[in-house]
């Protein structure tokens, strides 16, 4: 590992809605190194997708106010039209729902061809066909010829996601962003798709950002982990370290909330909801739901600080001392 | 989950304050766009003027066969705001009084077509998939396959060419749209979870339609009614342009335009003023309708 292929410093995103301004991401920094597989976890509405969309420079389509001090892809800025070009050259993205991420009115062939033509302009028909077949075969797609000639609705959800992955991989980029690539799929197919992504990323030595709320998945695939809550990173570090010994009360709760084979379905979880972005808590954003919250949590926002004697471990909490003795046990 | 849902239903009913709160929220949303307010004001003024037309008109006698030849073809002045016509009648008064039949037709058409349309739509939705549904759908389609203006004119001339049958004629062409919108709303609602739950809980379908669905579709129907008021006024004015509906000497906006055409271009106000009145009125109803659509669709999200 070494060079940072993606670097976000002090990203802030606000959405303008009729009630006022939603302060979704106040101040966020993260990085991804070459060949690294990074996970981003947090419950629904914690701003994960917004971070990804900012990285892929497609927030422009939404009513978002993006204020980024520094957002670099492969060491290049992503600002302006030139920046967008940099992003297009270096970032591929796989979306959450394969049924909405393919154009319903165009054949798979046409959609793939348009991507190829912009990547490799003015090549022969045979060349493009060869490329498309190779891409589909690389995601172990059965009957690729037939798939090319199909419209998205003629394919199953799993097949569509395979098509999306093959399209994302056709561009030879260093970074792949996967936004909950399996949530919209059957559980039986979930495993296959994740293995596929894992394989391809390993084989081609790409960097991966995987967003998911399936913690089991994240634990298996990623090297390093960011835990997000209400638009902020509350804990980060090596995946193994975090799962073995979570520090932030939110991380503890999140790990505790994963379904276990024993027990009744969704376990205890964390009481309450994500605070309103319209008027977020003054102090720590997690304080209203935190079992350990004290006066200082409600008044002063904690800072993400490196833990002493750790490898890349950051936590943002006022009451870390208490956490030395775990409140709840981790995965059983 | 069902229990939670039923509980929520109860709390919704008992909590009158939340209704008021909801109304305040919607009003706030609505009032943020000045266009909505303009629409509301125009509609309010139109309704007010319609009701008090006879008192508000500076020259109410000009609605009939009043002749003041000395004053004919006067340009818009301070005395005659919209000028006068070939008999010296005050155009402004005639426009104000001409509003009445237009609004009357709109109200009658809406009353008839909403009653029939919504009823048939509910019945078809209730008997979805049966012969009754098929029959109603086909009849609706049949009525939609003739241009509405032609259908209205055929009906109006067949019976009697007057103001009442003009409204009946337009209503005959208009109701299918309400059947269709109601039917679509009912079928899409019946897939919603809260209806499915209520159905599973053993509540009779008829009761579901009346108690659950009807309140849910009223906002859409009301919005459509607001928008349609403008369209009906347009259609009625097109009909009166060719002499169908209100009979002279009673003024109506469409016939005023058509009579004025003969005097173009010197006496332009004879056509421009009533046409302008139609534009402003229709725009008012459209602005209001669009505002309502915005507020109600945001609420859905």
């Amino acid at each position, binding site marked *: 590992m070494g060079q940072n292929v993606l670097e976000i410093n002090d990203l802030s995103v606000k959405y303008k809605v009729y009630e006022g301004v939603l302060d979704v991401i106040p101040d966020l920094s993260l990085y991804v190194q070459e060949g690294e597989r990074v996970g981003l976890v947090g419950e629904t509405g914690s701003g994960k997708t917004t971070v990804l969309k900012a990285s*892929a420079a*497609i927030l422009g*389509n*939404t009513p978002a106010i993006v204020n980024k001090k520094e957002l670099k892809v492969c060491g290049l800025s992503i600002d302006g039209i030139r920046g967008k070009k940099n*992003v*297009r050259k270096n970032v*591929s*993205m796989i*979306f*959450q*729902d394969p049924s909405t*991420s393919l*154009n*319903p*009115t*165009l054949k798979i062939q046409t*959609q793939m061809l*348009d*991507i190829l*033509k*912009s*990547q490799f302009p003015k090549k022969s028909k045979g060349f493009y066909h060869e490329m498309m077949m190779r891409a589909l075969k690389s995601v172990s797609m059965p009957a690729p010829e037939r798939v090319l000639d199909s*419209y998205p*609705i*003629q394919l199953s959800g799993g097949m569509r996601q395979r098509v999306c992955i093959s*399209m994302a991989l*056709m*561009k030879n980029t260093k970074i792949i962003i996967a936004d909950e690539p399996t949530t919209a799929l059957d559980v039986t197919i979930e495993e296959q798709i994740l293995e596929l992504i894992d394989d391809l990323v390993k084989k081609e030595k790409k960097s991966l950002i995987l967003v998911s709320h399936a913690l089991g998945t994240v634990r298996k695939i990623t090297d390093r982990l960011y835990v997000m809550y209400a638009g902020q990173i509350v804990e980060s570090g090596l995946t193994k370290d975090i799962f073995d010994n979570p520090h932030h009360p939110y991380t503890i709760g999140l790990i505790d909330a994963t379904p276990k084979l024993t027990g009744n379905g969704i376990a205890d979880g964390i009481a309450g909801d994500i605070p309103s972005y319209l008027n977020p808590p003054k102090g720590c954003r997690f304080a209203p739901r935190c079992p350990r919250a004290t006066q200082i949590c409600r008044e002063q926002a904690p800072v993400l600080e490196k833990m002493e004697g750790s490898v890349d471990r950051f936590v943002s909490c006022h009451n870390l001392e208490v956490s030395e003795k775990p409140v709840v046990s981790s995965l059983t | 989950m069902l229990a939670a849902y039923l509980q929520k239903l109860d709390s919704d009913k008992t909590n009158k304050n939340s209704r008021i709160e909801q109304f305040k929220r919607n009003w706030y949303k609505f009032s943020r766009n000045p266009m909505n307010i303009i629409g509301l004001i125009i509609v309010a003024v139109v309704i007010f003027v319609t009701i008090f037309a006879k008192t508000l008109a500076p020259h109410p006698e000009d609605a009939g066969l009043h002749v003041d030849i000395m004053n004919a073809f006067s340009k818009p002045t301070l005395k005659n705001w919209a000028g006068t016509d070939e008999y010296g009648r005050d155009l402004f008064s005639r426009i104000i009084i001409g509003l009445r039949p237009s609004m009357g037709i709109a109200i009658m058409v809406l009353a008839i077509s909403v009653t029939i349309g919504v009823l048939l739509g509910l019945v078809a939705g209730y008997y979805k998939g049966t012969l009754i549904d098929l029959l109603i759908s*086909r009849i609706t389609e*049949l009525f939609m*396959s*003739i*241009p*509405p*203006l*032609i259908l209205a*004119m*055929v009906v109006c*001339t*067949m019976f009697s060419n007057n103001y009442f049958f003009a409204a009946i004629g337009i209503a005959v062409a208009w109701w299918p749209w309400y059947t269709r919108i109601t039917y679509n709303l009912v079928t899409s609602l019946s897939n919603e979870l809260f209806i499915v739950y209520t159905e599973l809980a053993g509540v009779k379908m008829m009761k579901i339609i009346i108690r659950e669905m009807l309140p849910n579709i009223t906002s859409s129907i009301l919005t459509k009614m607001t928008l349609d008021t403008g369209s009906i006024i*347009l259609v009625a004015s*097109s009909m009166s342009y*060719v002499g*169908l509906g209100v009979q002279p000497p009673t003024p109506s906006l*469409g016939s005023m*335009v*058509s009579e004025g*055409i003969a005097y*173009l*271009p010197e006496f*332009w106000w004879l*056509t*421009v003023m009533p*046409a*302008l009145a*139609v*534009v402003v009125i*229709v*725009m008012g109803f*459209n602005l209001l309708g669009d505002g309502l659509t915005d507020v109600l669709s945001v609420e859905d999200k």
Partner: protein
Amino acid sequence: MKEGLIYVFKRFIHILIILLVLSFIVFSFIRLIPGDPVKSTLGPLASEESVNRMTHELYLDRPLVVQYGHWLKNVVTQGDFGKSLLTSRPVSLDIKEYLPRSLELCFLSALMILVFGVLFGTISAVFRNTWIDNVIRFLTYLGVVTPPYAFGVLFLLIFSYLLKWFPIGGLPRFSPENVRTGMLSIDALLMGNFSLFIKVLQSYFLPCLSLAIGSIAYQARIHRSAMVENVNADFIAFAEVAGVSKSKLIFKHLMKPSFIPTLTVYGLQVASLLGNAFIIESMFRINGFSQYSLNVILNKDPYGIVAVTFIFGVIFAVVNLCIDIGVVALDPRIRLKGAE
């Protein structure tokens, strides 16, 4: 493509049935008109014998269904719609005289609606929330709420009376031997007279624009909202990140799905053009079918009314079938589902 053909064929049969039922209803409805058509044709002095003979010849003494069958047979086999009481000649002759002109008017208007509606809608969507978008949205709003006759008056005043760019009304006259299709622009081209062709288009311009402008405005609004809705769709974001070029993204990936709602609304607009044209026809002194229908209706001419409603039904059906074919070509979802 096979699924598409099956779907279109199904729609065709469906429309045919609607048309038959429609004409039957109008046909029986017409009997409600007071007065005996035979007596009013032959005049008050006709003998009872000749009245009876004609009643028999016209199938009027047979049951309604037989009468209708006879009428339908004549329509299908000979294009004979019966005799008009208003013009006292076969309705089919009247239709042949008036319909081509109106079709020409509506066709040109339909062309304007498609071209300008989509153009302004696209510009508005691409530059959404800028001043260009706001100006277009304001103008289209005005267009939707203004009655077509008001536009007619306005255009006549400005372009014909004030600026004198266009004729005040009426169409160029053709000598009978030069009338081949009845559509003036085509006839002019068939004559090889290009300056006459230009003159025809010039005479058609204002009436077409007055007839079309409300629909253009409405179409632009529909197209804008369809495009804006799709701009936020995942598949556009996905295609953008995957590297599809900007122009392809807008004119192919965004335009194609946006055309589906646009086309459906376009069908409704075009189908109602002919029915709304009578005011414009009379204002611009175009002796067309719409105005003829109005006269027939106002004079309660029974065979005339049946014929014109039938023609309106046919036009509605044809336009709808074309739109169906268009939607099927655009949307594989309908094509694949509809063939089941």
